[in-house]
């Protein structure tokens, strides 16, 4: 196996360890397992960074183009933000119980879709906007995933009491934090869409074409726009929004990686028929 692939599967393996530590930690109410979960996530993150660096240095082409690269970057951003958040606040230790399984499954899935690195970058992608675009997309995904994780903690704390749950911040604080991450995700998705519009305008002279990837990104954005209005204008709080954040996350994963790439779109390579 190539060193790149070895690193990749080591990362997946360690995220797997992290996933099971978090889940069993929650079931067995063993906080030590959360510590194990956190540190195996950190340990998995290092080879994860290594994979991206290796792919990048192999060709000099930013490795965020194919679907598996896109998922690899999305999970990279998720684990990065998760780790920063966990090491800066100690209060939400079980947060990984949603974040890490999602990262584990997605990265494993990316592994099965992996192709050789492209040797050239399609001309249309040779633009600085690609950076703004992919950072917005991946960090937006990371934010709403963490928000959903907080939603799950909210629901768990509401149902259970004692021990581990006592140590969590109170419900209103979890709810508020989840809302913060949703707002952040909403802005980042906005950044992704606006930069995509600019980029498309530069390449094709139109900023919006209702192509499937554009529509799916609008779907995710509207979904969270509706969340914000339910909260601000209609005063929803707590349980309902926690469920909303969880369900919206599923929609997000499907729309983000499941569907757009299975159809011919502007994003699936750029047509130049002439060779």
């Amino acid at each position: 196996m190539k060193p790149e692939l070895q690193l990749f599967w080591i990362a997946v393996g360690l995220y797997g360890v992290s996933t099971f530590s978090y889940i069993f930690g929650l079931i067995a109410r063993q906080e030590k397992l959360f510590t194990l979960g956190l540190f195996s996530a950190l340990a998995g993150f290092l080879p994860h960074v290594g994979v991206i660096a290796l792919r990048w240095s192999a060709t000099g082409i930013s490795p965020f183009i194919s679907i598996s690269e896109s998922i690899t970057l999305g999970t990279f951003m998720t684990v990065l933000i998760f780790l920063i958040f966990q090491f800066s606040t100690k209060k939400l230790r079980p947060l990984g119980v949603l974040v890490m399984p999602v990262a584990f499954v997605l990265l494993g899935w990316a592994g099965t879709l992996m192709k050789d690195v492209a040797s050239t970058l399609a001309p249309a992608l040779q633009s600085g906007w690609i950076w703004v675009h992919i950072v917005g997309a991946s960090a937006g995904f990371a934010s709403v995933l963490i928000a959903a994780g907080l939603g799950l903690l909210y629901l768990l704390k509401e149902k259970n009491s004692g021990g581990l749950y006592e140590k969590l911040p109170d419900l209103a604080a979890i709810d508020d934090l989840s809302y913060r991450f949703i707002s952040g995700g909403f802005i980042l998705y906005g950044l992704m869409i606006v930069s995509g519009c600019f980029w498309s305008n530069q390449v094709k002279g139109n900023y919006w074409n209702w192509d499937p990837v554009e529509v799916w990104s609008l779907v995710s954005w509207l979904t969270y726009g509706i969340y914000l209005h339910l909260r601000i204008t209609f005063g929803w709080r707590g349980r309902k929004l926690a469920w909303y954040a969880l369900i919206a996350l599923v929609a997000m994963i499907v729309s983000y990686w499941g569907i757009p790439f299975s159809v011919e779109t502007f994003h699936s390579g750029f047509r130049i028929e002439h060779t």
Partner: protein
Amino acid sequence: MDTPTPSPADNQPEQEAYPVEPRYHPIHKIPRKIYDFLASARLAMVLLVTILACCISGVTLWRGAEAGRMVFGALWFNSILVLLVVNIACCFFGRIWGRRVTLISFGMILFHLCFVSVLLGVVYNSLFYFRGIIRLTEGEALPSGDPRSYDSYEQGRFFSFSRLKGETTLIKMHAGFKIGGEDKRAAYEVAVGEGGDRSKGIIYITHKLSHHGVDYFNDREGYSLLVILSDNQGRELYGGHVPLQSIRQKNGSFKYSTGYRDGETVKQDVILFPPPPDKPLVALQLGYILSKLKERSGDAEFALFPLDLNDKPLFNMKIAEGKSPIGNKFAAGNYQILAKEVRYWVGMTVRYEPGNAIVLPSLWVGLAGMMITTIGRILRGRRKRI
């Protein structure tokens, strides 16, 4: 459990009842009823959810062009979008009216204002835009302001062709164009305008040419053969460039031939030669087999058919069929035919979109508005905690 208990960070200066109701009412009775309808937060939710549902159906139930016809291009869908913006205008601004301007509300105002200005930009654009496809062979110039220069075009009600002055010229097409080590594949050297007011430049996929607000983008390119038809004494009857389509073969390679585009596929076909409005003499099927050794050389393939009185090809009475190197004559019954040289043709998209100057900056301002609101909230959260 779900009683609205605003978290500390959300406490407005005044206590609110949910849903927040408009505070500004213009007049009473009927206008008031219409206003209340347009300004209701419930309408906003219904519209947002409806749009969401339409978007989802437009990428699942219907796909591609069909989705455009059924949903995104349909009048009813666009009416919903317009209604949404009117709703934003009434609902949001009715509510925010008279409220103290804080960082939070300022950001929100910017943000919702941008929705309105995006719509205005889109409407303005739809009245004045022009989008066309112009196809040129190297060395060819076409009058920019003549609708016949375009393969196809669409325009806003108030667009005037007099805006497109002078000529559009394709000077040269550069295959395998590289810039700063990046392979741009194809670049077109073009000039537009008239007299001293001309813009000249190279366009490739991430680089357009602009001339007085009109943008030129590269779209597609192909080969074109200069074909000369003579009688069998060698007297020239007609000469002209014949653009060829690239037809993808099963093995992934391309065949270059006369033909036409049928949706996504290209079909091989004959053309009338000379092409109308001149009086056609034969039906010609032309192909080009490029040489791997030298650019713009190789062989031309010919098939010639006679025409009946209505200029319909008589396919069962083929005059001749064969192949000859570029620059060499080919004898075909009473005619001689010559593919004299190979050039490129290119198709460029020509766009005049004046509304974009409103829409695109609005998007950024809107994004900034969202950030300002969020920063405002974070700051307020901090202050509360201290």
